[in-house]
């Protein structure tokens, strides 16, 4: 082995090794979803992520889960993950307290391409916890707001109490630089907002099909109907991006758990231009 390849072996980080990080706080967004803020410590010096990327979050002795990063990419030393409590790992994460140590490795995967939207309108369509991986892109857009045309955020949730980031949603809704439309599937008489699926919000906005880039994230069926709406309004597939979701294990394209047709979502995704995955969306077995 040459001296050069020896040096490489010494410096290249093992992609399967986690970094210990501290839990700073947990904020419950609704009954079963919480945002975990992590202190990266010295590890934060070299940790940089792009909107749409994810980390493997490890609870020692229990296991790992792939979770989107939902914080501001410019915020150093701390990191947010918004997590739905559904399984062993996420339930264990939900029980963590300030000062507890967990492991992370990442960031992994592709990101929302923002350069393609410069000078254009941006339509962010999200459903449920799908808003989490889109929140970083909104932070980035707001920092360079003048680089973009209209910015529209469409967000659908199950009920008013299930909506994520309610304080921020309110803040964005009151910011004239963003058009925010929120809808819920079920409401009561105290809810004066929209009731109906997220696709119903499209009738309240006018999209300039040639000059709009759309970023879509949510349950797959919601994304399918959202894509239908965008196409009905004339948006070319090349201007639509979506984030796919499958069961991820290794996050580096070794194990094949997240394979969807010809692609490994952990490595080539989770963010894809629509033409790349459009034919796969209708395949039941995938």
């Amino acid at each position, binding site marked *: 082995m040459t001296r050069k390849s020896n040096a490489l072996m010494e410096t290249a980080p093992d992609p399967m090794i986690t970094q210990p990080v501290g839990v700073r706080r947990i904020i419950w967004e609704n009954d079963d979803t919480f945002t975990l803020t992590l202190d990266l410590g010295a590890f934060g010096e070299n940790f940089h992520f792009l909107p749409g990327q994810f980390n493997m979050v490890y609870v020692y002795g229990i296991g790992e889960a792939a*979770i989107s990063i939902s914080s501001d990419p410019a915020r150093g030393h701390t990191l947010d993950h918004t997590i739905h409590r559904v399984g062993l790992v996420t339930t264990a994460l939900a029980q963590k307290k300030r000062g507890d140590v967990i492991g992370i490795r990442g960031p992994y995967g592709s990101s929302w391409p923002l350069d393609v939207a410069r000078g254009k309108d941006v339509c962010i369509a999200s459903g449920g916890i799908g808003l989490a991986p889109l929140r970083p892109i909104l932070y980035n857009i707001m920092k360079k707001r003048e680089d973009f045309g209209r910015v529209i955020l469409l967000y659908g949730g199950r009920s008013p109490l299930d909506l994520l980031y309610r304080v921020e949603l309110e803040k964005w809704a009151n910011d004239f630089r963003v058009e925010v439309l929120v809808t819920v599937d079920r409401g009561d008489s105290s809810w004066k907002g929209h009731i*109906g699926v997220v696709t119903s919000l499209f009738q309240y906005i006018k999209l300039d099909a040639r000059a709009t880039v759309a970023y879509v994230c949510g*349950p797959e069926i919601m994304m399918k109907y959202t894509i239908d709406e965008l196409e009905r309004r004339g948006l070319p597939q090349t201007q639509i991006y979506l984030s796919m*979701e499958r069961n991820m294990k290794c996050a580096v394209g070794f194990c094949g758990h997240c394979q969807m047709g010809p692609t490994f979502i952990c490595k080539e995704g989770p963010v894809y231009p629509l033409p790349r995955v459009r034919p796969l969306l209708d395949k039941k077995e995938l």
Partner: protein
Amino acid sequence: MEKEDLSELLQQHPFLAGLAHEHMQVLVGCASNVRFEEGTVIMREGQMANKFYLIRSGRVALEMQVTGKDDLRIQTVGPGETLGWSWLISPYRWHFTGVSVLETRALALDGECLRKKCETDSEFGYAMLKRLSQVMERRIEATRLQLLDVYGMQQTGVSQ
């Protein structure tokens, strides 16, 4: 309100986009301009459905009565949308209660007047039915999605 003004308002509503001039004139004879304060019950479940509303601004919630519980709010309609199609379908009774959740302005078309025009002028009737069918198709699609409870099934941000 002058007929000319009503005609202009009708022409501006997306539901009637592209409707022939002579058909628009038929509608003017059945139309009136209405405004509802926030909290107004515009229609009540079970009562005679004698109006068809074209919403211009504001928001109306559709509610269903559920025995022993508060009314269930199942959908809202807003600017550019229509409210109520029971005026067209026997026995002409509202299936939902409609409450304005914001101050709402609308064009109200008299249901009986519309029905008579549809019966006597099949071309006009077909034009109306085509538009209403599109609305119904979209609403059914949306209802199916709502029934799926997609956020209840949702697992993760990426995979958890």
